[in-house]
């Protein structure tokens, strides 16, 4: 038996589309960089879709081709892990708008033969989800046992419940929200302005011979990274400690460890991410307001689905604080859905969902093992 070329690591497919977008535009073709783990069972009932966060990618449990680092969620996904690749057929796809093999501003516009750049249509979270559904059709998966996501992945998971209510059995939403707040949008705008203020950005048309706007992208990443950590976490990790020096230099080098750390985070990010993709994905997140898509009533977004929901927040997450998760839970209760919710304790802020958390693992494990 030859292996099905649709399944496995480092997959890429270009589907003809067109994909109708919320903006009114249509995308064609629709390219996907994705990975699958484990095997689809005979009745095709064991598929789990993992949705990644803003700067995440499809390399959820395999080494990243650019950085060589292990997958971003190996604590949760793999053999014997809560999302057990020996039990489940796990799919993770690069969102459209991104830059790791799926259609985005850095991929080729067939009309011109050059990178789309800013001619790429502006996307929404729901557009990303519709694209994923298109990929699932290609993979022969009609119904998902579960869709799982943290942060922006959680937004996609919620959007899945609203957009394809009959295609999902369960939804796991971690450290996420049903809408972007003014503060969320504000931080993203700082990042976008940093990118667009970089002279190398050149209206987004930097793919040919020019330098990429790495300095702007690095600043965007630095600003965003602060929102992923808690103040207590930063204090514990860095305090006011100096970076490899005994005294302040009375200059603007990275005197403090926290400065050095952020500069490193910013710089290393530019090696694996496209600045325009950052613009497009943050825009999609800012546009996200699930209630708005359903007559202003969040509960309406969930009425059509019979899926079970598991919502998890972290007590030190100030990017998507617990009250945002509670708003989702309240709406699910109002729609009389099966919902579990827990606020876990962690010193690490928003990033906690990616870090070691035995409680998170236990909750996801137990939730997914329920039959049905």
């Amino acid at each position: 038996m030859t292996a099905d070329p649709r399944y496995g690591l480092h997959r890429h497919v270009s589907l003809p589309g067109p994909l109708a977008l919320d903006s009114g535009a249509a995308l064609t073709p629709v390219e996907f960089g994705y990975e699958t783990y484990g095997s689809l069972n005979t009745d095709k009932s064991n598929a789990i879709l993992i949705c990644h966060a803003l700067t995440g990618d499809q390399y959820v449990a395999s080494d990243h081709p650019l950085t060589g680092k292990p997958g971003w969620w190996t604590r949760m996904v793999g053999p014997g892990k809560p999302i057990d690749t020996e039990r489940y057929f796990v799919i993770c796809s690069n969102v459209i708008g991104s830059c790791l093999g799926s259609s985005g501003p850095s991929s080729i516009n067939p009309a011109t033969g050059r990178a789309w750049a800013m001619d790429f249509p502006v996307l929404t979270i729901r557009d990303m989800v519709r694209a994923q559904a298109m990929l699932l059709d290609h993979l022969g998966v009609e119904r998902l046992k579960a869709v799982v996501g943290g942060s922006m992945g959680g937004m996609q998971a919620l959007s899945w419940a609203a957009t394809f209510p009959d295609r999902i059995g369960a939804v796991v939403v971690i450290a996420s929200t049903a809408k972007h707040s003014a503060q969320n949008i504000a931080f993203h705008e700082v990042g976008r302005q940093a990118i667009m203020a970089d002279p190398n950005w050149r209206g987004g048309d930097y793919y040919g011979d020019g330098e990429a706007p790495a300095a702007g992208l690095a600043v965007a990443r630095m600003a965003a990274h602060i929102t992923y950590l808690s103040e207590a976490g930063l204090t514990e990790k860095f305090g006011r400690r100096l970076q490899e020096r005994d005294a302040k230099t009375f200059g603007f080098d990275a005197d403090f460890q926290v400065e050095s750390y952020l500069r490193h985070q910013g710089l290393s990010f530019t090696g694996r991410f496209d600045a325009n993709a950052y613009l497009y994905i943050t825009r999609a997140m800012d546009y996200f307001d699930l209630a708005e898509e359903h007559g202003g009533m969040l509960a309406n977004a969930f009425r059509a689905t019979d899926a079970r929901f598991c919502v998890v927040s972290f007590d030190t997450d100030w990017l998507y604080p617990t009250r945002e998760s509670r708003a989702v839970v309240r709406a699910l209760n109002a729609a009389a859905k099966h919902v579990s919710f827990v606020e876990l304790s962690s010193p690490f802020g928003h990033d906690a969902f990616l870090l070691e958390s035995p409680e998170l693992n236990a909750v996801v494990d137990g939730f997914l093992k329920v039959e049905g």
Partner: protein
Amino acid sequence: MSDLRPDLAVIARNVDPGTRVLDIGCGDGSLMAALRDTRGVDARGLELDPANVSAAVARGLSVVQGNADTDLADYPDQSFDYAILSQTLQTTRRPDLVLDDLLRIGRRAFVSFPNFAHWRVRLSLLWGGRMPVTRLLPERWYDTPNIHHVTIDDFRAMVAERGIEIEKARYLRGDRRTGPAAANFFAEHAVFLLSRD
């Protein structure tokens, strides 16, 4: 069901099979699991302690972390056949309002609580002159979660004032039943099934 706490076992025996139940203060979900497994009940839970919520979710139950005093308003009217409040009434800030919410959300409600008029408690206060610390009420006055101690007679009076009907009452001494006569003196626990006419 044999390993359930006695008041929970009483409740479990009196829930009709196949019904929808909201267990408020569900702990680690023991009652919910028993109801699901033995009576085919569609059970949901509300629980304050995150470790308990995690334990309940990990056994496949639908439990929301929340507070009976503040979060019951999120549940629609008459959305459950039963609302259950076991050994939680005396920990709420406004037991009267919580009781109203129970019978708004559920068509009927089970309420169980430790009886503060049990003779041991009376004796302890009468002769010791100190706030009672008993087998059933093991915490001291300053660290107890029980902020509204209630007796069986107090509870009967409250439900009567609010026009709530007592459909069933069970009184427990340890894991054994005791009669309704002088229950306020002899029962350690009471379990009531309530409804509005």
